[in-house]
């Protein structure tokens, strides 16, 4: 359903993505893992065109574009099929919680205001924020802000939700509530690509794990294949830092 082929991206002389291939089926929850600086964020940003990849193709639901020649119109169209959840939330600070979610519905998708409010409220109830509809982001905890971010992404009814380390900026005691919300989203069958350092969470929620190192996909497979018994040496070395197999009882 989402298919990337040969994505390359350099910042100046620094080649960050060196030809990444990835295919995601409908309903997949893909966890992307890898060391800091390996290019995980850059990959997600390329999928959302916040970063312009130098080479490669992206196809979502059969709609294919080439990064090299993609135009504004195509970017706008493909962006409509993905939604992003940011590491540092990036909620609109001048909008209330409710407005953060209705904004895209009203402005971009031209849904009547009343209908947008109903849909947004429903989503915010789902992420457990029914009592915060009229609060501004600055008065929320990190975990609450990130749940708004997830609701905002879901409101777009995207084909794929891209999440970049959704819990890494959170205090430890707030990680659980946010992961629980993501888990519920996954249960609804919504396709997700999650960059995460939470290996247990990846193991638990993903049906596919992709290990990226130095701008290349080194290994991919089921969580057991990649996280418990990886074949590649580089994956083994990365996984061993988390001591997953010895701590996690299956």
């Amino acid at each position, binding site marked *: 359903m989402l298919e990337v082929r040969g994505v390359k991206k350099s910042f100046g002389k620094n080649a960050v993505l060196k030809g990444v291939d990835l295919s995601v089926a409908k309903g997949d929850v893909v966890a992307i893992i890898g060391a800091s600086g390996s290019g995980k964020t850059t990959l997600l940003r390329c999928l959302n065109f916040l970063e312009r990849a130098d080479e490669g193709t992206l196809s979502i639901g059969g709609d294919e574009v080439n990064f090299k020649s993609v135009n504004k119109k195509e970017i706008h169209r493909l962006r409509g099929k993905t939604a992003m959840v940011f590491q540092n939330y990036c909620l609109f600070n001048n909008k209330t919680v409710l407005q953060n979610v209705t904004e895209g519905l009203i402005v*971009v998708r031209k849904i009547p205001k009343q209908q947008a409010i109903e849909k947004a409220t429903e989503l915010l109830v789902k992420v457990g924020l029914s009592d915060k509809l009229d609060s*501004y982001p600055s008065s929320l905890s990190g975990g609450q802000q990130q749940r708004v971010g997830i609701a*905002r*992404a879901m409101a777009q009814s995207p084909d794929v939700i891209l999440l970049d380390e959704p819990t890494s900026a959170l205090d430890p005691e707030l990680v659980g509530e946010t992961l629980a919300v993501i888990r519920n989203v996954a249960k609804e069958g919504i396709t997700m690509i999650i960059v995460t350092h939470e290996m247990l969470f990846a193991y638990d929620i993903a049906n596919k794990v992709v290990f990226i190192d130095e701008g290349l996909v080194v290994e991919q497979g089921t969580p057991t294949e990649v996280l418990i018994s990886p074949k590649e040496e580089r994956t083994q070395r990365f996984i061993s830092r988390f001591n997953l197999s010895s701590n996690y009882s299956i």
Partner: protein
Amino acid sequence: MSNQPFKAGLIPEYVIKILGAFPTTLILAVAALIIGIAIGACLAAASFSTKKPVRVIASGYIHFIRGIPPLVLIYLLYLGFPQLMKRLGVDMSAVDKKAYMIVIFAIAISAGFSEMMRSSFLAIDKGQTEAALSIGMTKLQAFRRIVFPQAFGVALPSLGNNIIMLIKLTSLGFVIGIVDLMGKARIIITIGYRTRMLEVYLALAVIYWAMCFLLERLNKHLVRVYTKGKKQTQ
């Protein structure tokens, strides 16, 4: 100068007389403000341009204007510039004095306004634009609905200060014979054979002070209303 005893009782009367020129000062300030904001916005946009020559021109202009005392700028543009134009065959003697002065004031404040806008936009996290783009907004929508309202909140306190500076700046209009508050005060002094300078200038000072005081209060109020509950955390 004769040595008349100071008469505080005359001040209210002078205040009322000087205020006859209030509309002129108001027109100077409001018109210069509008034009100054327009020039400043263009400069700020130019300073974010992807084309280097555009950025260089904008920053050159800003540094040039900021380095010149307002009075020198007025003489340069009002007296010097027409000489240059004359040599080029353009006669500027028919240009309306007040309109010309308004443009000079606008130029004088444009650099400061541009810097104010520039730094306010820079204060807004890039993530705000990215989040807006990621939900499918166009760049223009992201700017209008998300970035601008926040940048405006950031700029509001210094906008107030800049407007107060502009109002004080308009008092220089008298050097080319504009009868604004300052010009009016000088006329009153001349008519009175220069015997009541202290009282007249005190009256004038009170007027400027009151205007600036009211503006400052208004600005504080607006800042409070505008930032209510919207304070940025990141």
